[in-house]
């Protein structure tokens, strides 16, 4: 089956300017060669610490940022070459749900207009038909039809996130990016939203890119998982395989950090020491070596490549050669 979205070797470096003339003094290597693909009906979880570049990946896929190098293909077509009508079609097929349900809804816009905006700007519906479709969409995400004439501040965090989901799904996209959709919510509300998102995927076959720093949430949501560290993917595998046997030391450290409910199974934890190095001055060799518990001589010399260790399970580490 062909991938709905395919990212190939995405690179995005942000120049850091300084001085009066805005000289480029350095580059922040936010995304430094990331490839993945997402198929229909599948969720790819993208997990990593804050500042590892996962949100930038989301923005690149959404075409909100242009990659310095590499390409994003939607159903085999490079999105950078799209203009006009084809670009509109792309916009309506790739949608996004953002993290903060307070900032992601315009406080001065009625729910009707917020949710209906993707229809309106793509000229898919207007007037009574638009209202009808907004109402149907609200019902689908578990809100009330009467909510169309309300403002965002009248809703709770969970309801707002439902509005955000309704806005993303109203054009019937094939691919949806979720950028930390639940990190601003209470745990109980989180579960409701996550289950809604899953249920909608089961019903409509959306492809999801699910970005989160919460390994537990990603495990619950994803079919496959990619672990990001400082702008690159260090390990990628099917969800079960990754949780059964994490290969990369970074992934293992992340999993050790998950709370273990059973005291008997709690082990000595190898937690990560130190901070994430600056993405401006990357360490030489493997980016993870300053924090890695299993660091070897070669790690400081050469960056490991992402290679298949087991079928369908790839890791970028010198331990597996």
């Amino acid at each position: 089956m062909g991938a709905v979205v395919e990212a190939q070797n995405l690179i995005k470096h942000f120049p850091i300017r300084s001085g009066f003339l805005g000289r480029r003094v350095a580059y922040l290597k936010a995304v430094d060669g990331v490839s993945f693909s997402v198929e229909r009906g599948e969720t790819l979880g993208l997990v990593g610490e804050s500042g590892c570049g996962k949100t930038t990946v989301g923005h690149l896929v959404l075409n909100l940022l242009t990659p310095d190098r590499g390409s994003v293909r939607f159903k085999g077509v490079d999105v950078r070459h799209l203009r006009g009508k084809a670009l509109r079609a792309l916009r309506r097929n790739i949608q996004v749900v953002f993290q903060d349900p307070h900032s992601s809804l315009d406080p001065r816009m009625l729910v009707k207009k917020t949710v209906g905006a993707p229809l309106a700007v793509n000229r898919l519906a207007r007037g009574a038909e638009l209202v009808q479709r907004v109402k149907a969409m609200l019902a689908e995400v578990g809100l009330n039809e009467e909510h169309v004439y309300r403002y965002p501040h009248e809703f709770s965090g969970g309801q707002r996130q439902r509005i955000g989901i309704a806005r993303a799904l109203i054009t019937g996209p094939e691919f949806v990016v979720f950028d930390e959709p639940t990190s601003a919510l209470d745990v109980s509300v989180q579960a409701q939203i996550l289950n809604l998102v899953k249920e909608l995927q089961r019903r409509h076959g959306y492809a999801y890119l699910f970005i989160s720093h919460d390994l537990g949430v990603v495990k619950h949501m994803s079919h496959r998982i990619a672990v990001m560290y400082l702008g690159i993917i260090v390990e990628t595998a099917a969800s079960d395989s990754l949780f059964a046997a994490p290969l990369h030391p970074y992934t293992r450290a992340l999993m050790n950090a998950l709370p273990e409910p059973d005291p008997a199974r709690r082990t000595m934890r190898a937690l990560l020491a130190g901070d994430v190095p600056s993405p401006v001055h990357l360490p030489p060799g493997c980016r993870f070596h300053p924090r890695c518990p299993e660091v070897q001589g070669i790690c400081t010399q050469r960056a490991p490549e992402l290679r298949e260790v087991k079928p369908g399970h790839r890791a970028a580490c010198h331990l597996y050669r």
Partner: protein
Amino acid sequence: MAGERIGAWGRGKRPLRINVFDEFRRQYAWQIRELGFMVRLLGRNPSAVAGFAIIAGMVAMALAAPVLAPFNPIQISLGDRLLPPGGAHWFGTDELGRDILTRVMYGARISLWIGVIVVVIAGGLGAVIGAVSGYLGRRFDDLIMRVMDVILSFPPLVLAMALAAALGPSLNNAILAVAFVMIPKFARMVRGEALAVKEKQFIAAARASGAGSLWIVWHHVLPNCLSSVIVLGTLILGETILIAASLSFIGLGAQPPTPEWGAMISVGRKFLMDQWWYATFPGVFILVTVIGFNIFGDALRDVLDPRIRR
């Protein structure tokens, strides 16, 4: 017959008009509540009440001038030249025997009209320029803002004078000149707000769903700047009236026999030594009106600014 109508307004079948009204109320429930809340806050603020009373009084006077004014504002009556206040002429008469109270009342129409027109033009253009400039950013923003800085670097009255003189003395040209001078004040403020709004996630969401820059500016950026524009507009209105009166005073605004406050002072100045009432009453009205708009604008800013509010 009347009974039937009353019945139709009751519980049973409701006429269509009511349903439309209900729909309107439901759709704008939040605005209506917000407006009620604002009105209550303003009502608790003494300077807002005072400012509002002055503005309302001036507007009422301007609207009712044809009904309330005792005389014709431009009818010359040489027998009644320069009469002191009292009797039939409460504010006295001018050198052509025209009643000054009447002319002051009609003058309110012109001054308020100038103020409203200028604020609508300058506020509208300034808000759009500022929003587009702030949203698009980069070179376009630099260019627009430097142009605005140039305009702002002149004292408003001096620039308005130069423009009005270049366009030729008439009321409409004075309006255009003052509006032009006021545009940067709105543009600067709205640009600042646009820079903040631009970073919000709903802008990224709109971009991701295919909205163009103009759509975003119109539907997201401008509505979020509206309350500040209203506040600034109220403050600018007072200043505008003052500048317009100044232009008329030096002969670049309203032309005789139009009863404009500034023009009246200009002529009355010559009689100030012996006939104090001629220039004084229009001057008092300018003063009171400008103060009214300023204190109301200040109070409105306090109420609309959520940081001060809650």
